[in-house]
C-alpha cells in the first residue's frame, strides 16, 4: 500500500502542499490562512427620502429578490382583554385581501407567480416579506404597497382565522413541551408581565375587524419601518422603487412607544406540573441580562462551555454522554434587546431520573461558578465563535437582514462597529472573566426549576441515585395546576 502510493503522494504534495504522510493526530495538519472581514453596514445603508432606512444588497447569482419591511409594533401594544390582536392583524394583512384583490384573488396570483408574500407580528416587531422571481418585481412591489397601505381584513378570513386559532388553542395541553413553554414564560417573567399574557377564547372573541384596522393604521407607516432588500436588481433602480413604495402614505400613525421592560421572576424553588408522559421536561431558570451588557461576550463564552456549545459543553457531556440520561441537555443565556432575558438550562429524561439529572445540572452550574474553566474549554469556545463567524453573513439576504435588524433594535445607533469588533471582544474574554460572570449570575440555590411530567413517578426518584426533587434548589416544591386551554383558568 505504502510503496504504491508513494509516487502518487509525491505528486499530490507537489500540487497542493500536502503532508507526505497522514499524521496520527489532526493537530499535526497545517492549513492555509483564511482571512475574512465582515461586510460593513455603511456599504449597504440607505436613508430613503420617504422615511425608512433600507439595507440593500445586490446579488445577481439567481433571478430572485427578497424584500422585507420590519415594523415597530408588537403584542406589547395590545390593550388588556384583546390578547391576540397583534397576531391577528399580522396574519390577516396578507391573508385578508387588499383593496384591488379579494383574499382568494391575491392568493391565486401569488401562487401563480410562485411568489412568497407573508406577514406577521410578534412580541416586539412586525414584518411583511416578499420573495419572488426578479421578473415579477414591479407587480410584487405594487402588491406589497397595497398590503401595507390598504389591507381589506375580509370578514370571512377574519372569522376563519379565529376558528383556526381556537382550534389550535385546544392543543395547548396536549404536548408537554407546550405546557413547559407557557409555564416557563410565566415563571421567568411574571404573570403580569406583558410578554406573559396569552390569548384566550374570550380575548379572541373580543376582537373586531375595526380593532385590526385601527391597530394597522396606528403603527404601519414609514416612520416605523426598517427595510432590507437583497437579490437580483440594480441598486439605484431599487432605491427609486423603494422611494415610490413608501411615498405619499395615505394615513399618519404614531411612533411606537418603547417596549416595557420590568419582568419579575418567580421565587426560587421547584414548580411541578403533573402530565401523563413517560419523560419529564426540566427547565432551570435564573434572571439574565440585556445583550448590551458589557459582560455579554464573557457570558456568551461561559454559557457555551456550560451548556450552549452542544457536544463540547459540560451539560451535554455529563447528562448525555456520561450518564445516558437525556437525548439533549443544554443551556441558553440569550441577552434581551429590551429587557433582561432569563438564563435557562434544560433537559428531558425518563420520569425516574428527573431529580438526578437536574441535580447534575445544578452541580455543573455550581462548578463553573466556583472553579476556573480549562484552557482547552475556553479555547474551544472562542475558536468556535470566531472561526464560524463568516456564517453570520453567508448570503446577501443575511447581510441585509442582519443589518436591518440592528437598525431596528437600535444596536447600529448604539454600537455601529458591533460586527467588526465582535471577534476581538470574544477573543479577549479570559478565564477570570468566565469565572466572574458565572459567579455573578449562576446561583443554583436560587433557581426556579420547572418540571413537567408524571408527578408520582418523578417524586419516586431512582434507587441508584438517591436524589429527590424536594432536595433541589430551595427545597420548596409547588404544584402548578394545568390551565384550561381556552380560558387559561386553573383546572382542578
Amino acid at each position, binding site marked *: 500500500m505504502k510503496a504504491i502510493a508513494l509516487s502518487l503522494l509525491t505528486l499530490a504534495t507537489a500540487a*497542493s502542499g500536502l503532508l507526505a504522510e497522514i499524521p496520527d493526530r489532526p493537530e499535526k495538519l497545517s492549513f492555509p*490562512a483564511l482571512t475574512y472581514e465582515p461586510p460593513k453596514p455603511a456599504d449597504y445603508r440607505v436613508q430613503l427620502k420617504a422615511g425608512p432606512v433600507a439595507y440593500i444588497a445586490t446579488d445577481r*447569482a439567481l433571478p430572485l429578490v427578497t424584500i422585507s419591511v420590519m415594523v415597530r409594533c408588537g403584542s406589547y401594544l395590545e390593550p388588556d382583554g384583546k390578547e391576540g390582536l397583534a397576531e391577528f392583524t399580522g396574519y390577516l394583512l396578507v391573508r385578508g385581501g387588499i383593496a384591488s384583490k379579494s383574499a382568494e384573488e391575491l392568493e391565486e396570483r401569488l*401562487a401563480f407567480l410562485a411568489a412568497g408574500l407573508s406577514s406577521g407580528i410578534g412580541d416586539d416587531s412586525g414584518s411583511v416579506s416578499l420573495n419572488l422571481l426578479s421578473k415579477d418585481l414591479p407587480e410584487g412591489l405594487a402588491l406589497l404597497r397595497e398590503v401595507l397601505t390598504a389591507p381589506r381584513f375580509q370578514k370571512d378570513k377574519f372569522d376563519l382565522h379565529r376558528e383556526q386559532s381556537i382550534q389550535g388553542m385546544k392543543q395547548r395541553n396536549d404536548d408537554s413541551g407546550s405546557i413547559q413553554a407557557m409555564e416557563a414564560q410565566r415563571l421567568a417573567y411574571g404573570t403580569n408581565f406583558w410578554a406573559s399574557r396569552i390569548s384566550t377564547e374570550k380575548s379572541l372573541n373580543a376582537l373586531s375587524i375595526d380593532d385590526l384596522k385601527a391597530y394597522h393604521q396606528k403603527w404601519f407607516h414609514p416612520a416605523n419601518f426598517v427595510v432590507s432588500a437583497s437579490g437580483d436588481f440594480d441598486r439605484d433602480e431599487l432605491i427609486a422603487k423603494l422611494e415610490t413604495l413608501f411615498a405619499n402614505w395615505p394615513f399618519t400613525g404614531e411612533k411606537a412607544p418603547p417596549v416595557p421592560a420590568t419582568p419579575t421572576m418567580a421565587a426560587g424553588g421547584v414548580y411541578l406540573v403533573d402530565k401523563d408522559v413517560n419523560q419529564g421536561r426540566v427547565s432551570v431558570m435564573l434572571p439574565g441580562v440585556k445583550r448590551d451588557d458589557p459582560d455579554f461576550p464573557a457570558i456568551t463564552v461561559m454559557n457555551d462551555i456550560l451548556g450552549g456549545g452542544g*457536544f463540547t459543553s459540560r451539560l451535554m457531556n455529563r447528562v448525555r454522554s456520561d450518564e*445516558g440520561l437525556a437525548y439533549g441537555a443544554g443551556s441558553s443565556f440569550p441577552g434581551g434587546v429590551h429587557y433582561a432575558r432569563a438564563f435557562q438550562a434544560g433537559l428531558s429524561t425518563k420520569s425516574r431520573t428527573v431529580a438526578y439529572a437536574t441535580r447534575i445540572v445544578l452541580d455543573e452550574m455550581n462548578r463553573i461558578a466556583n472553579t476556573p474553566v480549562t484552557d482547552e474549554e475556553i479555547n474551544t469556545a472562542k475558536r468556535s465563535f470566531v472561526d464560524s463567524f463568516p456564517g453570520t453573513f453567508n*448570503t446577501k439576504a443575511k447581510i441585509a437582514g442582519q443589518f436591518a435588524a440592528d437598525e431596528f433594535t437600535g444596536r447600529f445607533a448604539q454600537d455601529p462597529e458591533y460586527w467588526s469588533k465582535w471577534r476581538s471582544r470574544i477573543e479577549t474574554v479570559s478565564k477570570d472573566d468566565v469565572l466572574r460572570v458565572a459567579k455573578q449570575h449562576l446561583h443554583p440555590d436560587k433557581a426556579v426549576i420547572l418540571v413537567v411530567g408524571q408527578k408520582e413517578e418523578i417524586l419516586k426518584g431512582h*434507587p441508584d441515585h438517591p436524589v429527590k426533587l424536594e432536595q433541589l434548589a430551595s427545597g420548596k416544591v409547588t404544584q402548578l395546576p394545568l390551565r384550561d386551554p381556552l380560558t387559561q383558568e386553573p383546572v382542578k
Partner: protein
Amino acid sequence: MKRFLMSVVVAATAAIPVLGQKIPVVEKQLPNGFKLLLVERHEEPRIAGGWVAHVGSANERPGITGIAHLFEHMMFKGTPTLGTKDAKRDLEIIGEQEKIRELIRQEESKMRTALRRGEVTDITSPESRTDRYRELEQEFKRLLEEQRTLLVKNEFDRIYTTAGATKMNAFTTEDMTGYFIEVPSNKLELWCWMESERLLRPVFREFYAERDVVFEERRMRTESTPTGKFAEQFNAMFWDAHPYNWPVIGWPSDIPAISKKQADEFYALYYQPQNITLILVGDFKADQAEKLVGEYFGRIPRGNQPPPEVTTLEIQSSAEKRYNAEAEVNPQVDILWRTVAFGHKDSYVLEVIEQLLNGRTGRLYKGLVLGRQVATDAGAANRPMKWAGMFNASAEAKDGKSLDELEQSVYAEIEKLATEPIPADELQKVKNNFAAAEYRRLTTTFGMLYQIIFSEGMGDWREINESGPRIQAVTPEDIQRVVKKYFTKENRAVAHFTRKPGSGGAGEDPDFAGLSADQKPMARQFTKRITETTDAAQLKAMLAGIQGQPAGTDPKRQQLQKIIVRKLEARIAELEKK
C-alpha cells in the same frame, strides 16, 4: 453559480422557463469503491462535507430494529487516537465491559422469562432487576469509571468545533444514514482526516450509555408526544411484508437488547467503501479536492462481500385497513395510500398531485376548509422512498363535523382529480412553483449538500437535476391515470383520531359523558350557540324544530337530541327569569 440569460426570463410571462439550472456535480469513483460527488460553489468561504451510507432501518431485521440509527450515534465516539488518552487500556476495558454485558444479557433473559410468566409486569422498572443484575451493573460501573479517567470527552466534536466547523450532525431514515458538517474553506484536509479516520478505525466506546441516550430519544420523539405512539402503530399496520413497517428508532424492547457485537457486524457489512458516497460542496477546486479525498479515503480497504439489498417486495393489498385511536389531539383523519418508489416514472406525477392538493390555493384547503367548511386545516404529502412509496392526505375536523364526513370530503377531491382534467392554469401554477424552487434551492452551500445526500441516499443523486424537467412534462392525462391507479380503496389505510376523553385539560360538560367522540363536538357547538343566544323566542323556535323531528331509532342520536333539548330549556328558563 453562473449568471444565466436574463432575456429569456423576461420574455416569459406565464410559465417560468426551466433553463436547466442544474447543480454541476462532478462524479468520481475511488479504486476501493467509494463514490465521490463534488460541486464547486464559491459564494461563501465554507465547505459543506457529508457522506451517505446506503443503509437504513429497512436493512434491519426483527430483534435489532433501531441498530442503523444507534450506529449513527456511535460514529461520533472517536477512534484509537481520538477520544482516549490510552488507546490500549481503553480497548481492554471495552473487552472487559463486553464480558460483563454478556452476563447481564443472561439476566435480562431471565427477566423476560419472568415477564412471560407474569411474575413481573414491567422489566424496564429499576425494581424489576435481579440481584445478580445489580451486582453486574456495579461491576460494569467500576469499569466505566476507570474508562472515564482515560476518556477525552466528545473529542471528535471538540476538534471540529475548535476549527470553526458548524452544523455537525447526522440522520437515519428507513433508507439511508447521512453525516454532514460545514467547515471553513481552508479546512478541507481536516474534513478528510476526521471522516476517513472514523471510517477506517472507529471505536464504539460508551456504547451502552449511548443506547440509553437513544432510548431517551425514543421517549422524546415517540412515546411522550401526542401522536408519536399512534403514528408508529399506524405505520406498522400500513406495511404488510416490507421492513418499512418497523420504526427507524427501533421497537422499545429491541433498543436495549442490541449488543456491541451486533453493531460491529453491522458496521463491517454496511460501512464498506462500496456502500458509501462521499459528497463535498463549496469553496474548493474539484481536482485538488479529489486528490486529497483519494489520499485519505483510499486507505480504507474495500469490503469483501457486497451488502445485501432489500429484496422483500410489498404484497398486493387486498383490503382497506382502518385504525381508530383516541389521542390527545383535535379530531382528525389521516389517510395513506401505497404508491411508488423514488425515481419511478409515476413519482413525478404524484409530486404534482401533492402540490395540486396542498397549500392555501390547493384543492384540499379550498375544498374542505373554505368550500364545504368541514375542516380547519387539510394537506397532502407525497413520500416516495427507496424501495416503495406512500401518499398521505390529512385533515383536522371543524368543530361539529364528523370524521366520516371529513374523510368522504377528501375522497371527493381525489375523485375530482380522477374524473375532471386539470385546468391548464392550475397545472401551470404548480409547475411554476416547481420551476422557481429550482432556483431557491441554490441559495446556500449547505442546502445543496443536503439535497445531494438525500437524493443519493434514495438511490440516485442525478434526480436533483432530472426530476425538474420530468415534473414540467406531466400532463392532465397523466394525473387522471395516476390517481385512478393508486388512490383505490384497497390501497389505503385510514386513521381516525378522536380526542381522548378528559384530555386537553378543558372541563368537559358532564352531560356529554355518554356521547360518542363524533357527537361531542356537535354537542359543544350547539351548547355554545345556545348560551350565546339572548333571544328566548329564537331558542323556542329551535326547540320546536328539534321536537318536531322524528327521534329516529339510533339510541346515540336520541341521546344527543335529549341533551340539546335540555340545554335549550334551561337557557330559555334562564332568559325568561331575567
